[in-house]
């Protein structure tokens, strides 16, 4: 008896049900006819013969049943019946079903949304083939372990690394700022040069045309360019005919050969490119590598092999590496894991809590309704349903509810999962796309099944043992029911405890966010913007004109003056590296007349003298340097209050002398003043400005004239009368009036928007919004659960209350009796929640990276929950207290 033939025959019976039924009926008909004929031959009259033949065979449906049972389909049929019954009873109780389905939909939807977010941003964020084997080689400075950076290598080094045994392939890239020339105002584009194996390395087919290919490396080095999707949309309005057209970059014509798909936004390491060019067109020869390991090669093995190579490179170019360092390969997703991993884990935990609360809610409602259904179940039991049969039926009903919840939830999750990417775009890989796909659907179906079991099991086990004689006789008039309450009490207490846990988490994050929002910045971010300019250092002719210090300072100042004359601009300042809330360079400094016992660090800001007035930073004492001092660069400095208070607590900082021994030319393309590392007099003390992020204390800061050290890029802060971004075009024209080829970078940013886009700020906002929403849902669920429990019990105990009132009990007593059980369990829940919260507080604060939320947040949410709980218990209880004894005694 092969298993296969049985399965086949079962399947046939399932899928060709109608036909098999018909065949059975035909067969029976034949049998009856043949039998009747035989009986008639024996002398019976036709009518009697037919009757006998039919009676002997039995009814046709019975035979059909026999067939289905033979095919092992009885279970299937019964479940089908249960399913239909479940659907019908759900349809008949719209309020009950609505509340339960919604409770689960919230939990399943939120959990699915978080799972799809995690799937999109951590599990599967990149479009590249074998993205999990693509590594960033990170350099860790052993003197300063916080410092993690990338390195670039020359072509021979690149060729050497390409031979490494642990690598499948090696990609080199170089980010450059270029300008689109030949059409009106010069426009800034972010170019990325790629080694010609790029197409194979990424394994991402181009949307139109082709990507960068090995043939691009061959002479005659045709100038070709591949466009990024967003750039293509922005610059060409998504024109599909763009292939073959010409794009002029830095006065050279490039032929457009391809457009990459939307998800391709290489790269996360140094910045997304607008255009991609083959390496053979690059003038310099340094590239940053991305490595793809061979399948099966472990990270330590690869670390050892590649690390050795990198140390060898460091010997060749010591200036490009820290003195002591080690190299570690990092999967490209690691920086995101580090930044958002704990947050996502916490959010996932919180939605699981929400799901649990939703399940508890359903359980409570089912238990409550089960009490009303005891009569039905007793009848089922009395006519012979086994316990298993009743459990199965109840479980199928809860599965129907949970699948209803899952369908709604998945639909809602589609939008919910996108919210984080909108609220905090810079926290996640640019290439991640939230979609609903098979793993996610599988996840939510599994979730629905689990939830259905979790929700249904307790009520099913409890209700499947009906006390038949009691339930049948007593109709519904029962004064007892105390015993039945026990199951609720635990569920309610647990639910309230979980809700408090979630609300306290929300209180903590919202507290941290409020702290961030109200933290004094030290400057005025409204009506101000930052404009970034990268000079044309790779174009030898243009560079010659501004290579020297004086001419470059003049160029920078000329642009500042032209910008300042734009109508609507209030003032403009140079703040070369001074864009808060992360500003300045870490710099060692020394104090005059003091033996150097400790290494002192401060944030060095290179600014114009107008910086303080433009940013509206108050001057605490002293003065700002003059125009002439600004041109000279040497001899003066302004420090911030934190530094003044820490090192000159007597308040005599002004007039003291400091110096920064490392502040001198270190790299090509820089220009420094004559004595940049010499002694400087502190001429003034300025107010504190956030310079190490919004939530960390202000670090000591030194401000010096920007002419002290100039790189080929410069930033201007512009204060305007109205919306700053409305002035971008006149500002661009002002810059162009100084040099027709000089573009401004695309990262023009409103200082207020810069704060809101700051990953720390936006992540905290996202965190607060999501946590707030989840805990609000949890609170609503818990209250609905509590309210319905008390309402049900009031409805059931109406008789009892009538008796109590008739015997002289006061209204207050009835109120207490009606609300007591639920209120006590809720109190127990609050106590348990508080205990859990205090126990986990330190851990949570660490995970949430929040040190600013005091216990006041916990107190607020506890009070809120307490008040809401009380209301949910008392409202239905008040109805009980308002009962008139005569009516209550008659109540059925």
């Amino acid at each position, binding site marked *: *008896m*092969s298993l296969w*033939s*049985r399965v086949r*025959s*079962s399947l046939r019976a399932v899928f060709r049900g109608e036909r098999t039924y018909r*065949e*059975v009926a*035909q*067969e*029976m008909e*034949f*049998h009856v*006819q*043949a*039998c009747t004929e035989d009986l008639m031959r024996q002398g019976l009259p036709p009518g009697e013969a037919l009757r006998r033949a039919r009676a*002997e*065979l*039995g009814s046709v449906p*019975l*035979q059909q049943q*026999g*067939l289905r*049972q*033979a*095919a*092992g389909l009885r279970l299937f049929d019964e479940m089908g019946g249960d399913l239909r019954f479940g659907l019908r009873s759900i349809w008949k109780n719209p309020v009950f079903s609505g509340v339960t389905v919604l409770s689960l939909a919230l939990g399943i939807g939120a959990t699915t949304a978080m799972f799809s977010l995690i799937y999109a941003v951590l599990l599967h964020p990149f479009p590249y083939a074998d993205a999990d084997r693509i590594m960033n080689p990170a350099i860790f400075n052993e003197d300063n372990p916080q410092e993690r950076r990338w390195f670039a290598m020359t072509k021979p080094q690149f060729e050497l690394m390409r031979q490494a045994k642990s690598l499948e392939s090696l990609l080199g890239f170089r980010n450059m700022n270029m300008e689109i020339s030949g059409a009106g105002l010069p426009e800034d584009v972010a170019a990325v040069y790629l080694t010609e194996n790029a197409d194979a390395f990424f394994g991402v087919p181009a949307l139109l045309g082709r990507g960068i290919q090995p043939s691009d490396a061959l002479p005659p080095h045709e100038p070709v360019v591949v466009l990024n999707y967003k750039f293509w949309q922005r610059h060409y309005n998504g024109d599909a005919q763009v292939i073959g057209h010409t794009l002029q970059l830095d006065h050279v014509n490039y032929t457009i050969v391809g457009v990459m798909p939307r998800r391709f936004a290489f790269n996360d390491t140094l910045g997304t490119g607008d255009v991609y060019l083959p390496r053979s067109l690059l003038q310099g020869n340094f590239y940053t590598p991305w490595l793809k390991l061979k399948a099966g090669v472990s990270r330590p093995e690869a670390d050892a092999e590649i690390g050795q190579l990198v140390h060898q490179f460091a010997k060749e170019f010591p200036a490009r590496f820290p003195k002591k360092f080690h190299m570690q390969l990092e999967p490209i997703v690691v920086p995101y894991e580090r930044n958002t991993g704990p947050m996502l884990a916490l959010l996932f935990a919180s939605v699981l809590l929400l799901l649990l609360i939703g399940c508890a809610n359903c359980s409570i409602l089912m238990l409550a309704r089960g009490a009303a259904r005891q009569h039905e179940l007793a009848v089922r039991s009395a006519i012979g349903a086994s316990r298993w049969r009743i459990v199965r039926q109840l479980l199928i009903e809860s599965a129907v509810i949970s699948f209803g919840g899952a369908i709604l939830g998945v639909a809602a999750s589609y939008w919910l999962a996108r919210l984080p990417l909108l609220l905090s775009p810079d926290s996640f890989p640019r290439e991640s796309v939230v979609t609903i796909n098979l793993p996610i659907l599988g996840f939510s179906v599994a979730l629905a099944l689990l939830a259905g079991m979790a929700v249904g099991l307790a009520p099913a086990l409890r209700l499947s043992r009906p006390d038949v004689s009691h339930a049948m006789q007593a109709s519904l008039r029962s004064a007892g029911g105390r015993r039945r309450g026990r199951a609720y009490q635990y569920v309610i207490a647990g639910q309230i405890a979980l809700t408090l846990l979630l609300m306290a988490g929300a209180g903590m994050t919202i507290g941290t966010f409020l702290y961030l929002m109200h933290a004094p910045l030290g400057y005025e971010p409204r009506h101000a913007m930052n404009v970034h300019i990268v000079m044309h250092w790779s174009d030898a002719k243009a560079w010659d004109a501004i290579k020297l210090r004086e001419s470059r300072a003049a160029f920078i100042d000329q642009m500042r003056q032209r910008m300042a004359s734009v109508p609507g601009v209030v003032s403009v300042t140079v703040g070369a590296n001074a864009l808060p809330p992360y500003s300045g360079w870490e710099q060692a400094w020394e104090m005059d007349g003091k033996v150097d016992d400790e290494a002192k660090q401060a944030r060095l800001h290179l600014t114009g003298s107008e910086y303080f007035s433009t940013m509206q930073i108050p001057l605490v004492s002293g003065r700002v340097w003059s125009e002439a001092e600004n041109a000279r660069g040497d001899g003066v400095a302004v420090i911030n209050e934190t530094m003044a208070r820490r090192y000159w607590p007597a308040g005599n900082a002004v007039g003291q002398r400091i110096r920064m021994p490392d502040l001198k030319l270190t790299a090509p393309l820089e220009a420094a003043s004559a004595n940049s590392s010499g002694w400087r007099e502190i001429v003034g003390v300025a107010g504190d400005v956030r310079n190490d992020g919004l939530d960390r204390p202000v670090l000591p800061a030194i401000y010096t004239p920007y002419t002290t050290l100039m790189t080929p890029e410069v930033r201007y802060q512009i204060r305007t009368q109205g919306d700053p971004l409305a002035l971008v075009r006149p500002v661009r024209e002002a810059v162009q009036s100084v040099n027709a080829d000089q573009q401004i970078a695309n990262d023009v940013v409103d200082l207020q928007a810069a704060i809101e886009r700051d990953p720390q700020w936006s992540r905290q906002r996202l965190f607060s919004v999501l946590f707030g929403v989840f805990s609000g849902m949890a609170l609503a669920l818990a209250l609905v659960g509590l309210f319905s429990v008390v309402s049900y019990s009031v409805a059931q105990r109406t008789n009892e209350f009538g008796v109590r009132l008739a015997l002289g009990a006061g209204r207050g007593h009835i109120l207490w009796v009606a609300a007591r059980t639920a209120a006590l369990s809720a109190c127990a829940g609050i106590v348990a929640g508080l205990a859990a919260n205090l126990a986990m507080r330190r851990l949570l604060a660490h995970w949430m990276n929040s040190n600013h939320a005091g216990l006041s947040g916990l107190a607020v949410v506890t009070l809120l929950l307490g008040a809401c709980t009380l209301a949910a218990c008392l409202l239905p209880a008040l109805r009980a207290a308002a009962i008139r004894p005569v009516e209550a005694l008659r109540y059925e």
Partner: protein
Amino acid sequence: MGDDKQLDLLQGTLDLLILKAVSLGPLHGYGVLLRIQQISGQTLVIQQGSLYPALYRLEHQGAIASDWGESDNNRKAKFYRLTTAGRMRLEEETEKWNRMVGTMGAILLAEPEGA
């Protein structure tokens, strides 16, 4: 039907009888009934109601297979025939039955010892 000459069917023997009946040639359900009664010389009674469930069970197990065909008087009927698996099962069950009969016979023939 309470004739003394007729025997009630032993539990579990219906399957064996059906297999034997169809092993002699394809039969429709009513034919199976007739053939069993005919071979047994009208001594075995088969409840008609239990015949078909047994047929469906055997078919589900793969011991017999069915095809629609024409009966003697040109009516459409479903014919059952033995499959290879069914033939093997028939042999096994026959052998088992024979052993059983032998054992039972031996037991029932035993004389009390030392009488």
